[in-house]
Structures are given as C-alpha cells and as structure tokens.
C-alpha cells in the first residue's frame, strides 16, 4: 500500500524554486556554447545571410482561416519548396492538435510540427488538471509565450490557431516573433496577398456554410495559381462548437480548370 502511495504522491516541497524545476519550464535544448548563440543559430538557418546555410527552411505556402456565423473555415495548400525545387506536393499543413483545436503550418515545418505537438500535450494536461476544455485564448497564450522565450534563436513559425473551447470559437495568429493577435480573418504565407484579394472581396459574417467553404477553397486556388511557391492540393477544414471536421483534399489544378469552366474566371489561361 505504501509503495502505491509513494508512487502517486507528489513530493511536497517548501523550496520556492520548485516551480522553476517543474519540467515545463526547463529548457531541454542544448544551446551551442558560443558567445552570441542566437546570432550563430540564425546564421545557420537564414538563407539571406548565408547561401550555403546548413538547415534549409522550406518556406512558401498559403494558409488561411476565417471566422463567420457558423464557425471557422481553415484552408491550406500542400506544397513544400526548397528554393526553386518543389520538395513535396503532399505536405499536411494543418496540425490536428486535439479534436477541438487546429493549428496551421507556415514557415519552418519542423518548428511548427514540434511546438504544436507540445501545445497539444499542454492542452491535455490542462484538461486533466482542471476537468474542462482549455479555452482557445489560453492555448494560444501558451504557444505565444513559448515562442517569445525562444525569440531571437532563429525559430520560424507563422501559425494560426483555430478552435473551440471555453468561450466559443476563436481564431488567433501566432508567430515566432512572439506576436499573438485575435481576429476574424487571417492569411499567412508567401501566397497570402493573393488569397486576401479573393477572401476580402467575398467575406461576410453571415455567409452560409457552403458559401464559406467555397470561399476558402477559391481563395487558396487563386493563391496557388499566382504564387510559385504554393500549390499541390488543398486541405479544407471546418470548425464549429462540436470540434473540427475534415472537408476533403482537392487537387488545385483540377479546381482551377473547374473555376474556368463554371465561373468564367482565369480567362488568360488558353483552353
């Protein structure tokens, strides 16, 4: 009996530095023991400073999310480019953190995937400790604070956190500078300017679900056509008070030809 008790009892400690020793606050990454470590790390990943940098970040993407009366629509492309080379056309840029939270991937793929998985772990711990779903506001704050603590070390992440929890649906933009912005319409990535054009002209809070999904799809299609570093296929998600549902993977090239036939757009492409 005693052995079970000791196994499941947290050691009571009067040490006021206990919270610092808590696993969550411990930095488990070995930083290179050079002066100005953050400058050194940035030189490893920043291609504008050093063309033959060792860690090639795959930038180039278009992701968007917008909030409307029935929930949130999240739509992303699936191309990863290493300079002009198309490294992959089938990248999953939406990370399913838990059944109520989605995170998008833009910037460094590894950074996004890793830290959003850590966020998923923190959200689950919150759920176990507090017996209720974490709010999107708190979840985004956790991620933003993690980003801020690594500010200057060369992490590259421009993500949108969309989900439902205590307080309803919410959409946040979080990036590796430590920015955390709440909003209704966001688009992130090299193709975001093209997506904003279509998104802003079609957006209305009172859209129907079908129109909202079509708007998300059509915005990504516009961006993948004009932006060289976006393309492949698009992944469409919808979030409402019950969590997220996946609405399909669509080949972008097919959608462009379909838009040309049905809407009459893309007239500059010869048949």
């Amino acid at each position: 009996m005693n052995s079970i008790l000791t196994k499941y009892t947290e050691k009571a400690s009067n040490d006021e530095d206990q919270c610092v020793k808590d696993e969550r606050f411990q930095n488990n990454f070995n930083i290179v023991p050079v002066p100005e470590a953050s400058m050194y790390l940035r030189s490893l990943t920043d291609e504008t400073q050093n063309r033959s940098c060792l860690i090639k970040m795959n930038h180039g993407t278009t992701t968007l999310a917008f909030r409307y009366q029935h929930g949130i629509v999240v739509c992303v492309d699936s191309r990863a480019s290493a300079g002009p080379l198309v490294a992959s056309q089938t990248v999953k840029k939406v990370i399913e953190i838990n059944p109520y939270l989605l995170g998008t991937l833009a910037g460094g793929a590894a950074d996004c995937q890793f830290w959003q998985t850590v966020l998923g772990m923190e959200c689950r711990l919150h759920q176990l400790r507090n017996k209720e779903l974490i709010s999107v506001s708190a979840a985004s704050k956790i991620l933003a604070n993690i980003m801020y603590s690594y500010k200057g070390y060369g992490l590259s992440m421009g993500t949108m956190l969309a989900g439902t929890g205590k307080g309803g649906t919410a959409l946040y933009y979080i990036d590796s500078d430590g920015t955390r912005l709440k909003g209704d319409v966001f688009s992130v990535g090299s193709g975001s300017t093209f997506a904003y054009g279509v998104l802003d002209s079609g957006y209305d809070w009172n859209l129907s679900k079908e129109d909202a999904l079509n708007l998300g799809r059509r915005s990504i299609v516009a961006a993948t056509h004009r932006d060289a570093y976006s393309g492949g296929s698009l992944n469409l998600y919808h979030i409402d008070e019950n969590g997220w549902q996946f609405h399909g993977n669509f080949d972008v090239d097919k959608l462009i030809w379909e838009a040309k036939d049905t809407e009459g757009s893309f007239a500059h492409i010869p048949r």
Partner: protein
Amino acid sequence: MSIMEYNGGSCVAMTGKNCVAIASDLRLGVQSISLANNFPKVFPMTDKTYLGLTGFASDVQTLYELFRYKVNMYKFREERQIEPKTFANLVSTSLYEKRFGPYFSFPVVAGLAKDDNPFICGFDSIGCIDFADDFIVSGTAAEQLYGMCESVYEPNLEPEDLFETISQALLNAQDRDAISGWGCIVYIITPDKCVKRLVKGRQD
C-alpha cells in the same frame, strides 16, 4: 537570390529519326509572382533552325533580337539561309564577346541541316558549345529535365512519338520546379513542315 532564378523558365531539345523537337515552358514571373502564361522561350531563326533561350528574361528578349539581326545580315550577304551548325558557332562567338559582362542566359539550338540531318546543341552563358546527339536541357528545371530525359529518351523516335516523349519530359520536370510551368509549347521540326503545339500543364 540568383539572377538565373529571377524570372524562371526551362527549355529542352531532343533528336529523333529525321526530326528534332524543341520545347519550353510559358511562364514569366518575378521571383514568386507569376505574371504571364504566354512567354515562350523558343524562337524560329530560319525555317529549319530554332533557338531556345532560358534565364534572365530581359536577356532572352535581347539575345533573340540580336540573333535575328545577325541571321538576317547573314542571309543578305550569303544569299542563303544559315545552317544550324553555323548558327551555333555564331551564338558561341556572340556570347563570348561578352565574356566579362555576360548575358544571363543558357541558349539551346535545334534544327535540321541541309541534308535533313538532325542537329541540337546547348551552351553555357559564355558560349561553350555542347554538341549532343540525344538531348539538351536548360533552365531552372534543368536538373529535373536531366532525370526525365535520361529515363524516357530513346534514339530514332518518329515525330509523333518524339512529341509525346518531349512533352512528358518537360511537363513532369516543370511540376517539380516552382518557377517553371504554366503550360508548354512544343515545336516538332521535320523536313517538310514544322508543327507547333500548345500543351496544357498544371496551373499552380
């Protein structure tokens, strides 16, 4: 940012049985933004000689006009059309004239000689001629094109088969290059005619 990757674009030429094929993509862009889908990079110099130019778009246009001038002057002086092999040497010397301030372009010449023998060759930006009897590639998708051509090319293809081969090589190589694409244009040159075909490609 490299000047050769500023506008994007690629070109490929192949030989067949008494025919040659030359093809290029149609994209013109400025770094990541795609601006035009009607910017071919293959130009007819004579009925039987075609020039493909990749790289910096401004130099593509300038070189086309330069060689058009030189080919026309040749015709006036010699009272005959220039042969592909002679034209290749003309390209080589013109490029070397700018050895210390080169044109940022990698030309490709494809044509049929007087006796209808197929002729193709490629150049680097300062005029080194690379004579080949199978295929020549050029542009931002060159590495991808090398891979595609090595696997799909076979010698002595008929014009129709050569068209299929060169189209597949270019289309699939373009899909792995972010800054080439938006369709391609293919010229098949045979002793009696030249057929120009527009091939639909992925529009992303």
